[in-house]
């Protein structure tokens, strides 16, 4: 496979990756379908921003945000059936049940654990150590500016954490199970080892004491953009959206079986971070996963970082002591 040169890298040498917006598929169908799948994403984004901007205080609650998020996901599951990007990513009963299990862990036991060891505790500690009243001018900024700052600062942290996961072996071990997904569906973002889900959730946006409404607005932006990372729906996403926001096309490249392609598109919401730091590849891929598309089951996903970590440490110690430790090939970080 020849691949395509993007910057200094050859993308698609190991596995097919479509590079360039002009080469990716488009929505097929009548004018209404075309219109719907072209303007759906921006319409939802602006509607959610308007809702959270004007919602009365008794509605401006995190629980309402979660409920809207769940309803939105159910609707998007319907869209996956109506207009799939690839038939080979069609959601099956078993895949759905597996995905819901990971989502369920996130809403229950992991959330509980996170409340004791997560970023909330660290934020509280940092806020207690400094006189953050000096930053009170932040809350005087217009709501949308605050929301954009929260969203971009949080995503900036996620970008580097994600990039770190692809560059540093111990972090990669926690992230690798997520790269064994072989198709993108709406709940696939939750699939992964709990340690990784905890690490990727660490945010720096929380250090600043923004208005609650600004947080809800930022959450809405994250939801109305980030949710599309893992989705099997074909959209004619507008060019401006693809330029500033992450899309399912970008993320499919990141999950592709092509090694170099996985070294791209690290951001969650703002693809401009990738553009700024030179890791953006515009395109899409159908063949996803690791080891030629081997699916990882739940048990292996839970134990992988520990079993692989143990093997690596054992091999390293074996080499150091000159005991002829096993030199079995290790999984390389995807960057």
């Amino acid at each position: 496979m020849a691949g395509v040169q993007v910057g200094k890298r050859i993308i698609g040498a190991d596995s097919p990756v479509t590079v360039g917006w002009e080469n990716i598929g488009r929505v097929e169908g009548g004018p209404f379908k075309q219109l719907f799948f072209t303007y759906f994403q921006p319409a939802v984004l602006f509607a959610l921003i308007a809702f959270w901007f004007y919602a009365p205080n008794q509605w401006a609650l995190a629980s309402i945000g979660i409920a809207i998020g769940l309803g939105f996901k159910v609707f998007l599951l319907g869209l996956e059936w109506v207009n799939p990007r690839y038939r080979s990513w069609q959601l099956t009963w078993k895949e759905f049940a597996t995905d819901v299990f990971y989502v369920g862990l996130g809403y229950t036991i992991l959330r509980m654990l996170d409340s004791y060891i997560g970023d909330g505790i660290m934020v509280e500690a940092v806020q207690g150590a400094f006189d953050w009243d000096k930053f009170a001018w932040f809350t005087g900024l217009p709501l949308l500016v605050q929301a954009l700052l929260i969203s971009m600062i949080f995503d900036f942290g996620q970008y580097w954490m994600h990039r770190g996961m692809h560059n540093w072996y111990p972090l990669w071990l926690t992230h690798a199970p997520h790269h064994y997904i072989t198709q993108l569906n709406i709940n696939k973002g939750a699939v992964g080892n709990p340690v990784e889900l905890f690490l990727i959730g660490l945010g720096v946006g929380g250090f600043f004491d923004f208005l609650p409404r600004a947080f809800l607005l930022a959450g809405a932006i994250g939801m109305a953009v980030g949710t599309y990372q893992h989705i099997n729906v074909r959209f004619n996403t507008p060019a401006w959206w693809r330029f500033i926001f992450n899309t399912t096309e970008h993320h499919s490249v990141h999950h592709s079986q092509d090694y170099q392609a996985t070294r791209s598109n690290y951001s969650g919401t703002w693809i401009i971070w990738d553009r700024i730091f030179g890791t953006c590849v515009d395109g899409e891929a159908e063949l996803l996963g690791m080891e030629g598309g081997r699916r990882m089951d739940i048990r292996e996903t839970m134990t992988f970082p520990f079993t692989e970590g143990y093997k690596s440490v054992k091999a390293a110690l074996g080499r150091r002591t000159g005991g002829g430790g096993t030199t079995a090939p290790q999984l390389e970080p995807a960057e």
Partner: protein
Amino acid sequence: MSGQSGGIADERVGPWSQPQSSEALGGRRLKLPFIDNIWRVRGELLLDKPIAPDEAFARLDPLFRAPGTTYNVDDDTLTYTKRNPAAQDPLATFTRGSLRIAPQGRGSVLRYDLSSTALLLCFLAPLLFLAFAQIAVGMNAWEKANVEASEQGKKDEDKPKAIKKLNPIDEFLGAPAPEDPSKKKDKKKDKGRHSPTPAYVLAGLFFTIYLVGRVLEPWLIRRRLRSALAEA
């Protein structure tokens, strides 16, 4: 085709997933006539025209040529096992089973007996989430007891937070003014910070997913077997 075995086994296939004869498979199974309906699916497919086992299994062969699958044909019976099948494997839900073809009247009948670990785990998943709910309830009670103990003889030294103001641009655009942040706190304290509700919802959701799967997956597999056998 008697005694034939095959499949595309990945490198991680363990000795337990080697091809087994139907006797071995049947002999190892527990006799649980009602309970095993949770994860087992049995049925038969009547075929109008008589079909020899060799030909029937040749038509079904593409279903078993998948990564992680090992199978064995012994006369009129095909047995198979799958280890972590691919997402789009048509038999992904049923990771073990046997299919037997026999003459019946003027035609033939395919009798199948399939097992699904996924259905069993899905059936058990509500118990896991109910356990998470109980952990949440327990943690709330434990935290409440701790807070009450630590608050005895100690004055509330938290200084009330100032009510924040909106930016004039937001005021002009009509955004509602922020609430007094000190009001909301007390409500949350009474309920505890770990809500068991998501765990209860998920327990219910998994029970629903199980029921849907128990009906849908046997229907789909029957349809797949029928269409595979109908192919010329």
